[in-house]
């Protein structure tokens, strides 16, 4: 009985030591990939996400208000004063 307990303890200790050892073959963290411009996951044929936003003319526009009235072009630009 004592022998069994002892072997169990020994095994446990061995496992703990092994776990504490740093893995020698650990490879350095891969270089962070260059930040990529996010690409939309929306596709042609999908419903456009609705929104309600304030505009420069003081009005608030809701995309779904244009349904069956007009086509809408949304030209996203990066920031004002960056050209384009």
């Amino acid at each position: 009985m004592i022998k069994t307990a002892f072997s169990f303890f020994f095994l446990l200790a061995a496992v703990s030591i092994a776990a504490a050892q740093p893995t020698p073959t650990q490879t350095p963290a891969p270089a962070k990939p260059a930040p990529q411009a996010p690409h939309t996951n929306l596709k042609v044929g999908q419903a456009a996400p609705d929104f309600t936003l304030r505009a420069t003319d003081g009005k608030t526009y809701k995309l779904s208000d244009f349904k069956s009235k007009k086509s809408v072009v949304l030209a996203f630009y990066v920031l004002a004063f960056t050209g384009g």
Partner: protein
Amino acid sequence: MKAYQADIAKFDANDTQIFGISVDSVPANREFAKQNGLTFPLLSDFKRTVVKDYGIFNEEGGYGNRATFVIDKDGVIQHIKEGSEAIDPTSAEDACNILTHKKATQ
């Protein structure tokens, strides 16, 4: 944006509402519109919800990337251009033209 302004008549002719949209505040956009002579409305996505919904939010920069979406009268996306391709409005105009003609032939 200036290129879109220059071609606004083409969009109007195709029964299309054009919006500029960015994460700038309304006052910043007003100044931008004034300086560039933009007559179409610029939408302010200050909370960055729309750029996220459209999947073009740049996490690192905290702004939306350049992109153009054409949405038809059914609320369906008919045309997408991203990045530098979105600067030239010609393909968006073509998409609007096609939509108008599609409507006419239906």
